[in-house]
């Protein structure tokens, strides 16, 4: 068990393993995205209330669900960085931050587009999810700018690890305080996405497919980015130089 764990810390081992996984992951991702996008955006019957705009939700819910994974991911990587000094965890955390920021931005953008039709407004401060997502984006941008400001790699790794852990706690606190804030302002959330909507199972199956597709997309882009980072950081080691010479 611990052998496996320490092996995972070695960038070379990860590079080789991920190289073998990557074709399968990419294949699965392509299938899921193709099915999800074509079915969800072209063939899904219109919602009884929202009409065709509900198709935007197929993308939006999937992206939003995925973007929630980033702070936990970075915090776990941060704990591993701080406790076991594992270089790989820091590489993953470093690459996860910009991807997470992009996902958060996409969540806000697709949500706004959907909201502009369904709610009649592009932005709604009374919706806790919107505001929380906005501040999650800001916190992620903070982690990114801290990373780019610190030149020493080791120091940057530990500093960003700590900030990610603090950030995770903060996102949770922000989420609940914003929810509370809204409840007390007594403005009902404009729409509820409850599972018992009369749309039938189709809608939820399509969303589930897209969520899986987005998680696969997240894994693929994270692995690709991490492999890139490994090559850059390990450029002085023998196996990377061999690899470059072979290709």
């Amino acid at each position, binding site marked *: 068990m611990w052998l496996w764990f320490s092996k995972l810390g070695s960038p070379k081992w990860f590079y080789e393993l991920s190289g073998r996984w990557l074709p399968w992951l990419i294949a699965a991702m392509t299938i899921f995205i193709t099915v999800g996008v074509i079915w969800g955006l072209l063939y899904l019957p219109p919602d009884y209330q929202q009409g065709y705009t509900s198709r935007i939700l197929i993308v939006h819910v999937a992206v939003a669900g995925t973007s929630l994974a980033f702070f936990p991911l970075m915090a776990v990587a941060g704990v591993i960085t*701080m406790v076991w000094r594992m270089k790989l965890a820091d590489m993953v955390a470093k690459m996860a931050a910009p991807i997470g920021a992009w996902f958060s931005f996409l969540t806000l953008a697709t949500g706004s587009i959907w909201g502009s039709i369904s709610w009649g407004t592009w932005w709604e401060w009374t919706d806790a999810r919107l505001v929380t997502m906005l*501040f999650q984006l*800001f*916190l992620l*941008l*903070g982690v990114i*700018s*801290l990373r780019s*400001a*610190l030149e020493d790699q080791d*120091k940057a790794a*530990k*500093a960003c690890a*700590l*900030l990610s*852990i*603090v*950030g995770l706690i*903060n996102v949770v*606190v*922000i989420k609940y*305080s*914003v929810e*509370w*804030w809204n409840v*007390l302002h007594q403005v009902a959330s404009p729409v509820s996405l409850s599972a018992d909507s009369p749309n039938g199972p189709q809608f939820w199956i399509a969303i589930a497919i897209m969520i899986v597709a987005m998680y696969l997309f997240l894994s693929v882009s994270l692995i690709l980015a991490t492999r890139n980072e490994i090559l850059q950081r390990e450029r002085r080691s023998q196996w990377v130089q061999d690899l470059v010479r072979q290709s």
Partner: protein
Amino acid sequence: MTIEQSTIKQTTMAAAFIATLKRDLLISFKKKNDVVNPFMFFVIVVSLFPIGISPDSDRLSEIAAGVIWISVLLASMLSMDNLYRSDYEDGSLEQLLLSPHPLFFMVLAKNLSHWLVSGLPVVLISPLLAYMLNLPQAAYFTLICSLLIGTPIMSLVGSIAVALTVGLGSRGLILAVITLPMSVPVLIFGTLSVQASLNNTSPAGYLALMLAMLAVAVSLAPLASATALRISVN
């Protein structure tokens, strides 16, 4: 060497805490600019709002609490900048890290002194500014209470970001980018409590929640600050 060690052992943790607090307060007292400037900044920012938004007293009384809270936030961030910087530059921060006493309490002492010289004056002047912004009388007491609880939270949480960036040359903006999103919960409950007393409902619940946040911040934030200092200084 042995003599030094024996004298170190004689100082208790409480004595070390008080010594750090006294030292920081003395330094702030000697460098008055660092204390006065954030305070002046706060007063000026608050007075800019009526000019920028509207001199209409009804409208001002609506936004007064929010304006004061946000200005406090910005001012505390400005003053935050010299929390560890001069100590880092003259090397006394390293001495603090080498001290045999837990860094947790040293950090807590520094945060307390920072709050005493930057947070407390702002809280004390806030009734006057609230009066200028035409905040209804009913909300004064709540505003002061919420600021009294909220400003130390800001000092404690901001201290983490300052400690992380202490080695950087120019860090004013990065500090803002990291700290400001983190202060959202304090801002929410601070303004909510004032709103509650404006609506003639009891603000006690929000103040209690803020006290809970303060308790969590006092027990966890110095830990994170201490870790951050060890990362930055080594």
